[in-house]
């Protein structure tokens, strides 16, 4: 087992649209070990599309290329679609940015977790149900038995997000891409969920890509941070050193968050320079 789990070199993703080509990702490179890597960046900078490309979930009309896109030594761009599917939801899992949209709307939350579990392991119905309930409990869902029987439109934003997390956890992946996994959770539940992810990294050696807008969480939770802007990585930095970031985008980000007890109206905003997107 090598230390590098994932190697991304010069990843590019292009979409055709009515008004021309959109270069969503323009040469992204980073590598990931058995650690917590944060990805932060401008809205629309290509974070989710980067995650989706690693998963093999890029929309079919888009063009994906890379000098290297390797998971555990395997070239993801040249293996067969069948091998890719086998990796997905098995050794690699992704918590999608919008859970309610990614859950099956006509299947109850409980059944979705049970089915995911049963495609992975030979377990009986009763045991599967019990484990699914235990997972919902682990992500701090109040009254798991009620939520088990609810459909996605019947749960709150944060409950949907946690159902999605529970579903990904039952698969025990080696690489987890979590796209804004806690954005709809209240701050105390956020920390509970991070504790679960943290354990998987520390105890099972899982590699975690944590895409988040929440700089406070990223700087306190992750080991390293990749900062993206306009489809590129503009800075890579140790999470604990985020305060000393060099790139003006990163510095600007830190400055424009509201802080409890420091009134600033209006909030400072970024003066985006064209050369940042060069």
């Amino acid at each position, binding site marked *: 087992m090598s230390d590098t789990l994932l190697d991304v070199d010069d990843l590019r993703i292009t979409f055709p649209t009515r*008004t021309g080509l959109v270069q969503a990702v323009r040469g992204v490179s980073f590598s990931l070990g058995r650690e917590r890597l944060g990805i932060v960046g401008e809205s629309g900078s290509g974070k989710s599309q980067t995650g989706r490309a690693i998963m093999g979930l890029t929309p079919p009309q888009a063009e994906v290329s890379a000098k290297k896109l390797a998971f555990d030594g395997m070239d993801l761009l040249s293996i067969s679609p069948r091998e890719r599917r086998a990796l997905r939801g098995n050794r690699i899992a992704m918590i999608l940015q919008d859970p309610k949209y990614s859950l099956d709307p006509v299947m109850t939350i409980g059944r979705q977790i049970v089915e995911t579990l049963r495609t992975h392991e030979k377990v009986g119905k009763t045991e599967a149900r019990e484990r699914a309930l235990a997972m919902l409990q682990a992500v701090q*869902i109040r009254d798991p038995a009620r939520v088990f029987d609810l459909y996605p439109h019947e749960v709150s*934003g944060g409950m949907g997000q946690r159902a999605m997390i529970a579903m990904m956890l039952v698969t025990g992946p080696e690489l987890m891409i979590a796209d*804004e996994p806690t*954005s*709809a959770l209240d701050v105390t539940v956020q920390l509970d969920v991070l504790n679960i992810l943290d354990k998987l990294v520390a105890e099972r050696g899982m590699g975690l890509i944590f895409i988040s807008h929440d700089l406070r969480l990223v*700087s306190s939770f992750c080991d390293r941070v990749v900062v993206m802007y306009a489809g590129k990585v503009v800075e890579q930095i140790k999470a604990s050193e985020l305060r000393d970031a060099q790139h003006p985008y990163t510095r*600007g980000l830190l400055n424009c968050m509201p802080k*409890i007890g420091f009134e600033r109206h209006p909030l400072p905003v970024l003066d985006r320079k064209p050369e940042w997107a060069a």
Partner: protein
Amino acid sequence: MTVSITVEGLEVVFDRFRALKGVSLELREGESYGLVGESGSGKSTLLRAITGLAPASSGTITVNGKTLGKTRDKAFYREVQMVFQDPYGSLHPRQTVDRLLQEPLAIHGIAEGEKRIERALDEVGLGKGFRFRYAHQLSGGQRQRVAIARALILEPSILLLDEPTSALDASVQAEVLNLLEEVRRRRKLTFLMVSHDLAIITHMCERLMVMQNGEAVETLTASQLIGHRVSEDYTRNLLRASEGFVRV
């Protein structure tokens, strides 16, 4: 003082589950009021009940002096607009941004669509290039900005905002919060705003209610929260958790 929204003893029940257990609230005209609390505590349900999307089984809701029944008329939506928590579900993915913004204007028979659409997109920081994109071609944060533009385009007097910036990076978040504050000041809007980010709530709101399990835990002014002058343990936990992750 003019009252904008009064909610009294509101109960919402789904099957047998009580999502709201007698919640009361009073918003003054022009005020910005925050809702924070546990995930699943009923914050979205409260906003949805005001807009008629969640069934109230008892209690009353009064908006601009009018006590509401089960249904809402067109005039209501001219006054009250909501930005939904999930930007994916609330915008039809196969419609262009242009269509999404035309629609409310057409429903309410508003002329000058062209100008309003351009201004609305400009206000939320989306350039002209986005106007003919389909919603499914946008990132999470770009969708959220379209949703905000769509709510503002009718120039309502009350805006219900459910986690309006949780899908945005800090720089776009700052722009959207500034925009919301500015339109509020300019058009004397009343805000009822849900966020799990206490810093955003204290930045945007004068008063707030903390919710847990379908009930109000306590109501506070922003300065009480800032000064940690709170009486409930749950609120104290929220304040502590707001400081970030601590590895044990």
